[in-house]
């Protein structure tokens, strides 16, 4: 058992090492020194306490989106629409934040609640068709991302634009702010919420029969059905929950960091979360660490743009390479035995 776990982790580390070597080659190709890029990344991510707080600030949405992705992956669902749920959740929270006046605390909770509802509602149609008619959820959720981003831009620019502002809503009232943890950073309670969510999800998957059922549907749907799980309804619920957490990520980002909704306010966090969850193999606890890793990369990349000639997108290249090498090694080992099982995503 422990040996298996060790082998899995070491395989993961070898895959990351391979990806980093490939990444170094690409950095050389774009005319930068890999060592300099690495040092700049490290300095940007962990240079001083403000930088560390900045890293954690970037980690928060990746972690929450990662938990959302984990919930889906556990249940055998690829929720690639977290990005869209994040945007709608972010907008919904901002709307409650600036359009209503409520007592402190309650205002924030109401905003977060609407973010959750918005995220779940946005995934509801793809989830329904996935559960009922087996419509491929990967494609439907990806396409709905584009609609979500454009729709929130429309809301922001045509319906709720701050007078005199530039593609952003009016600022939310201070009663809806998520409290900050330290005075020197915008790092807020969102991180704590993310950690609680990750641990809570892990406990639910490990200790409740519902969580066990979800995992079973994800790994062996026939067995789960035979065991009395309503596979269709559960698939629907899993996607809905995943979307709800995705919406929450957006709400936390607006209430904790930006205090308004801006066009393109959180680019790529949904995809980073999905990648973090894939790298963690669907385990919420492991997602904490992979999200931290990606948060550090993101935070470091801000300095990269300033100090070197490389663009910050070089880190998405590295992330993609990591996933590619991990996907190769994990599945060589696991899927060697069956032809039928690996065609699960066939339509």
């Amino acid at each position, binding site marked *: 058992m422990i040996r298996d776990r060790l082998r899995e982790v070491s395989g993961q580390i070898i895959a990351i090492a391979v990806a980093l070597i490939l990444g170094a080659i690409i950095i050389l190709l774009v005319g930068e020194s890999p060592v300099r890029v690495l040092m700049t990344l490290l300095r940007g991510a962990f240079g001083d306490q403000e930088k560390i707080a900045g890293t954690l600030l970037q980690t928060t949405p990746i972690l929450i989106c990662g938990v959302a992705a984990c919930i889906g992956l556990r249940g055998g669902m690829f929720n690639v629409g977290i990005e869209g749920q994040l945007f709608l959740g972010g907008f919904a929270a901002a709307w409650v934040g600036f359009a209503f006046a409520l007592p402190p605390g309650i205002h924030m909770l109401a905003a977060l609640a609407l973010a959750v509802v918005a995220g779940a509602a946005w995934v509801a149609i793809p989830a329904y*068709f996935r559960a009922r008619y087996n419509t491929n959820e*990967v494609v439907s959720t990806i396409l709905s991302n*584009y609609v979500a981003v454009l729709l929130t831009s429309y809301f922001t620019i045509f319906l709720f634009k701050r007078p005199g502002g530039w593609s952003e809503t009016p600022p939310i009232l201070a009663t809806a702010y998520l409290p900050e943890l330290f005075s020197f950073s915008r790092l807020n309670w969102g991180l704590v919420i993310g950690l609680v969510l990750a641990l809570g999800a892990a406990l639910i998957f490990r200790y409740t029969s519902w969580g066990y059922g979800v995992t079973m549907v994800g790994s062996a749907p026939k067995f789960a059905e035979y065991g009395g799980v309503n596979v269709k309804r559960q698939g629907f619920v899993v996607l809905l929950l995943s979307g709800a957490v995705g919406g929450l990520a957006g709400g936390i980002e607006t209430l904790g960091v930006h205090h308004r909704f801006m066009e393109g306010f959180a680019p790529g966090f949904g995809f980073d979360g999905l*990648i973090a969850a894939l790298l963690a193999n669907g385990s919420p606890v492991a997602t904490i660490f992979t999200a931290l890793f990606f948060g550090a990369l993101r935070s470091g990349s801000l300095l990269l743009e300033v100090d070197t000639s490389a663009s910050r997108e070089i880190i998405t290249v590295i992330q993609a390479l990591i996933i590619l090498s991990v996907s190769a090694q994990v599945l060589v080992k696991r899927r060697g035995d069956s032809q039928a099982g690996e065609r699960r*995503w066939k339509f």
Partner: protein
Amino acid sequence: MEILDKLVNVALIAATLRTTAPILLVALGGSFTTKAGIFNIGLEGQMLAGAFFAVIGSIWTGSAFAGVACGVAAALAFALVFAVLVVSFRANEVVVGLALNILAGGMTISLMKAIFGTRGSIVGHGIVGLPKVQLPGARAVLGSWAPLISGFTPIVYVAFIAVPLLVLFYNRTRLGLYIRVVGEKPEAAEALGISITRVRYTASLLCGLLAGLAGAHLSLGYITMFTENMSSGRGFMAVAILIFSNGDPLKVLWGCLLFGFADAFSLRLQTFGYPSYLVLTVPYVVALTALFALSYRARPKIITETLASMQRLLSTDKNIEPGGKHPS
């Protein structure tokens, strides 16, 4: 009515054919992988890489066709990586496809910054666009309808000619048959001595070829520039089309014409002052609606197939291994 006349005319139909071409090419490319039983969500990335390297090649050599060749080569490289990971390493198709899309997005932006020192887009720098082909005699025969068949770039013609060619390919050639067998009944293919690996590699590379052409059309066709993520979901729309067409070239054509029309129509609407953000959602909403509506319609087929296979299972001997192929 007058507004309708302004919106729908020969120019709109010609624009539809233009906007259909890239999505048709990428969807026809995807039909190879779909028929071979591979779910290829990486079309978007192949197309984006094709668009970027077509621009690079065009600047570098000063020739549009050499640019197209560069774009195709880049898309082929992505397709090859996809095939190595999915076919040889048996990695999850969705994961690999998504990762390659992210890779293409990050790589093109990084290279743009490294080569041109800019963010956002590449304009000018001596990009040579594809020439427009004026068919001789088109104006004499069709009069004002001539723009419907004449004046497109070569890639548009390739896209539409590819449809009947692919129908013939799947029905009349050995490789086409092999691809279909490998996709539908891999066990049968294996029993016949067809190399599943080789056929799937071939299908993936053919897919990369057409996706690269589609990308080159985006950046060298009617606008000669490259912008960040300029494929803007067309690869995903193509996948949606492939799902409900099952990769049949003719059905792919109808689906793509629908999207091309939605695309051209939404561009039209923008010039009439409708909020661009809402108008831009039209193609995606059309794609989603079609996907949902047609999967609802396909439901009886799934049920009948399941029933048929259950009957088969019950009527033949009871010793069928439980890990056998599952319908749907």
